[in-house]
């Protein structure tokens, strides 16, 4: 009985921990700018001029913000698809084949996962300007791909190892061509793993900040985290907190939707990639 109460309290604590700041930024997004500058340290939104949905309306009327959302969605999706395709090839080879240099691949991936991103920003900034990739979509997609590959390769190869590959041979013995065997037997088994890797890759790309602020200079490629941080509004010395909060909430919605739908897969992917490897 005592144990049970402890668990309930623990669960409540976890929920408060996870959701309090989220509730706070949502509450902030419904407050009016004047209420905030006047100093109203309340948690819940108060009435007043500009309270309610008006912050959202202002944010959605803002071209800068809309372009950033478009950039983020486009860049993250493309980087995710490409990275998962490349990682699937590599992970298949690692899980399935014996070849020289296999250890080296895993070591390189591990080293890159630990790499300090900021170290590369200077040289990339210089290189991208020289080859014309600065402030373009590919200029961000390439770094995102290479930095999401390690996680995708681990997750996928951990996943592929669990697949009973003998089934493929069994199908071949029963008369299927090797392509048919692969497509009908292995692909359906591998699909959930590929999907998990895709979600984690998307999270990474959506969350990136360092590349986003350093390798872009205009709205043509700047993703949403960078755009939010440069958003100053009418008074450059006082950040428009409630507007920013509304923008932040909008930028968070895709992630929350993904989490709500795929939570089980995400947990499996995170832990198998990092612990079981």
């Amino acid at each position: 009985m005592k144990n049970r109460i402890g668990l309930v309290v623990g669960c409540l604590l976890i929920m408060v921990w996870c959701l309090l700041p989220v509730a706070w930024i949502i509450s902030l997004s419904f407050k009016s700018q004047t209420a905030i500058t006047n100093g109203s340290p309340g948690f819940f939104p108060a009435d007043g001029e500009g309270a309610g949905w008006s912050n959202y309306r202002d944010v959605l009327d803002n071209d800068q913000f809309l372009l950033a959302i478009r950039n983020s969605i486009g860049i993250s999706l493309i980087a995710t698809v490409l990275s998962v395709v490349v990682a699937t090839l590599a992970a298949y080879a690692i899980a399935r084949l014996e070849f020289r240099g296999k250890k080296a691949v895993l070591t390189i991936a591990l080293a890159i996962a630990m790499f300090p991103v900021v170290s590369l920003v200077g040289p990339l900034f210089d290189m991208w300007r020289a080859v014309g990739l600065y402030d373009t979509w590919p200029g961000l997609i390439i770094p995102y791909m290479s930095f999401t590959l390690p996680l995708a390769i681990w997750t996928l190869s951990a996943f592929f190892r669990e697949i009973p590959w003998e089934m493929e041979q069994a199908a071949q013995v029963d008369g299927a061509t090797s392509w048919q065997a692969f497509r009908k037997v292995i692909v359906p088994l591998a699909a959930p793993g590929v999907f998990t890797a895709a979600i984690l890759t998307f999270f990474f790309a959506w969350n990136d900040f360092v590349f986003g602020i350093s390798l872009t200079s205009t709205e043509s490629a700047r993703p949403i985290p960078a755009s939010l941080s440069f958003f100053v509004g009418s008074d450059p010395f006082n950040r428009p907190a409630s507007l920013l909060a509304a923008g932040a909430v909008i930028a968070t919605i895709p992630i929350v939707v993904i989490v709500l739908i795929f939570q089980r897969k995400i947990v499996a992917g995170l832990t198998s990639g990092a612990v079981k490897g």
Partner: protein
Amino acid sequence: MTAPVKPVKGRPAVSDRARAETRLGQKLVAPAIVLMLLVTAFPMLRALYLSTFDYALTAPDERDFVGISNYLTALTDPLFWQTTGVTVLYMVVTVAVELVIGFAFAMVMHRVIFARGVIRTSILIPYGIITVVSGFAWQFAFSFQNGFVNGWLPFVGDDFNWFGQTGSAVVAIMVSEIWKTTPFMSLLLLAGLAQVSEDMIEAAKVDGATWTQRLTKVILPNMRAAIMVAVLFRALDAYRIFDNIFVMTAGAVKTESISFLTYRQTIEQFQLGMGSALSVLLFLSVLVVAFAIVKLFRVDLAQARQES
């Protein structure tokens, strides 16, 4: 009906087959390797090269070879050591706090039967939220103008400015970092906990071991590999801390991390030579941290990954 057993991949010349397999394997991993090296190894070598020049992007024609003088300047500058010190402080405190809170969360999640989905969904939300957004949320929460923290904490005044001095600003930044990344830590620890055999815990219980004894003698030693992986990943991640500092203080009141200093030199001040030297130093210090952690836990990483 018996399907004819095709002599698929020829019986003779095993070495031929092995060679073909090697070739296929290398072909399949090649794109991944090329991409990863293109964005890391090549720029890193270029950083090494650029770091030997006095090279500012604002005056590209006045690029002078200066040898190791950028490194000497950086290493003798108190600012470099101060940012390194702050970075180590961020790393040590956040990882230590996260290890404790993350473990507590993992224990709860491991035992809980009801509402499992709800708990797991909520714990993924901080993990999924953009670091910049969590930085903003906490910056506004700590703000004396529009935040609630001062109102909720009895021991600080209503107009206490958290971002006015180093100590409290560092605390605020750490809180945002800890909030955002504890879920990752606790999920890794949860996976480790799941691998500790229940039988062993039960056996210890039957033998009369107290809760503390079971924790320190049975559970923790069996999770060593998982704990090490979690600490290593989080520590290296924390050492690169950048986003929340950028948003919350922009490096003011000595909250700047080594990543931030590097960024500021390279991108904001266009000092590519000096920035590259700092990049190399940052990279080397990450290696030192990784090496120290692996040594400290005395676990072979490759082995840990396979066994656990």
